[in-house]
């Protein structure tokens, strides 16, 4: 994917910047967008692309530019919302890239297109409607929140009159309720377990190989990677090897498809 600097698109970037900054105001009147669908329309207007032909590269580029330009004052809410929009566009695009069932009837194609357009307009209108209702309900909650209910309860001397509340409650009930609470409890920390941080880089490995390979006469890829445990590490080592091959430091030879990959150092021996 090629990223191009788009100086001619300044005005569009500014629009996006503005749009990205808008949700920061406390009322969350997102201005330009009211949701993912609004973003689509926005892109259609500013990028002048067909809604089914959104350029992936463009979207990612726009997104990154917004992130970089506003990195100092962009809120987490805004940036995640934007990330969500970008992800939705990627999903739509990837769906478009899937082969469509063949249809030789031109009329039917056009009908489908019209239908899709109507559906889109429909959901756009309903998403705007609910965004507005939501803002109104927020106002109602705010007003209602100005008044707090009484929750004193029965006075202690009367409590004994009330039927026992634990009648029919078993320890097992308690356990399952506790389990449900814990399950529903919102984690106070963001779980990052699914994100793996690269501990090694291609550059690091290439450097390491440049010092170790000259001393090894003829080794195979399997041999030099046998101590690695993570698949991602093996991939990085392979990429580093390709890098060295590209710069003419090593020769790679593979006798047969999926066969053993032999590595021979032909570069400088400065480190040896």
């Amino acid at each position, binding site marked *: 994917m090629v990223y191009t600097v788009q100086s001619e698109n300044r005005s569009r970037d500014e629009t996006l910047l503005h749009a990205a900054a808008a949700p920061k105001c406390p009322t969350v009147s997102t201005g330009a967008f009211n949701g993912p*669908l609004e973003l689509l*329309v926005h892109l*259609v207007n500013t990028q002048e692309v067909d809604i089914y032909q959104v350029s992936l590269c463009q979207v990612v580029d726009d997104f990154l530019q917004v992130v970089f330009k506003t990195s100092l004052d962009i809120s987490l809410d805004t940036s995640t919302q934007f990330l969500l929009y970008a992800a939705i566009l990627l999903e739509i695009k990837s769906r478009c890239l899937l082969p469509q069932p063949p249809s030789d009837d031109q009329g039917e194609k056009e009908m489908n297109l019209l239908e899709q357009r109507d559906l889109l307009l429909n959901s756009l*209108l309903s998403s705007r409607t609910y965004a507005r*209702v939501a803002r109104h309900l927020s106002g109602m909650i705010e007003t209602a929140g100005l008044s707090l209910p009484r929750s004193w309860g029965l006075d202690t001397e009367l409590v004994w009159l009330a039927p026992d509340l634990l009648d029919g409650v078993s320890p097992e009930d308690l356990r399952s309720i506790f389990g449900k609470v814990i399950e529903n409890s919102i984690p106070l920390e963001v779980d990052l377990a699914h994100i793996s941080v690269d501990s090694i880089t291609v550059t690091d490995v290439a450097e390491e190989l440049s010092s170790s390979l000259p001393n090894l006469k003829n080794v195979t890829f399997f041999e030099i990677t046998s101590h690695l445990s993570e698949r991602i590490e093996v991939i990085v080592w392979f990429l580093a090897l390709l890098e060295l091959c590209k710069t003419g430091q090593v020769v790679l030879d593979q006798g047969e498809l999926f066969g053993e990959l032999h590595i021979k150092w032909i570069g400088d021996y400065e480190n040896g």
Partner: protein
Amino acid sequence: MKTDSFRPSRAVEARAIEAVLMVATEPLATQFLAGIVETTPEEVERICIEISGWYESNQTGFQLVKVAGGWRFASHPDMYMFVEKFAKEGFSTRLSAAAMETLAIVAYKQPLSRSQIAAVRGVNSDGVIRLLSQRGYISVHGHASGPGQPGLYGTTPAFLEKLGLNSLDDLPPLAGFVPGLEEAEVLDSQLGDSHNE
């Protein structure tokens, strides 16, 4: 009702209602109060409206309000700043725009399933639904008959209380929020243009 016109001898039903509401922890339905004070629901309703007006005209720092189908005492909104100072912790955090949108959809279209909510919002809303369920504003009211029998969500009495509403009928009509014809036409033409390219 004038400040000074309240009958000097309060009816026993009115006093009983006040006494019971003072020790209640949740809104008490008119019907329920009628059973306790041994009178008709109509009479309870009349009394509650009357004493509620009496507090208002005497500018007490509390109100008698009807929410979620029942009556309860609450602090007067005018005194918010003092109550807030007193009960800082009690004020729940604001709901996000996404949560409010989901709540609005559930409120107006209930009962509906997760996937129906997602269809209206255009995005998966499971996380938000979980949050709203946990806060007790929505809950599963039943199950659809279709495959998998998905749970159908609806709003709870806590939702009504949160909004200060007596019943769902008091929600503002949706029609007032639907984009106008002009706006729809603009959107329509925007979509249309893109296609002709």
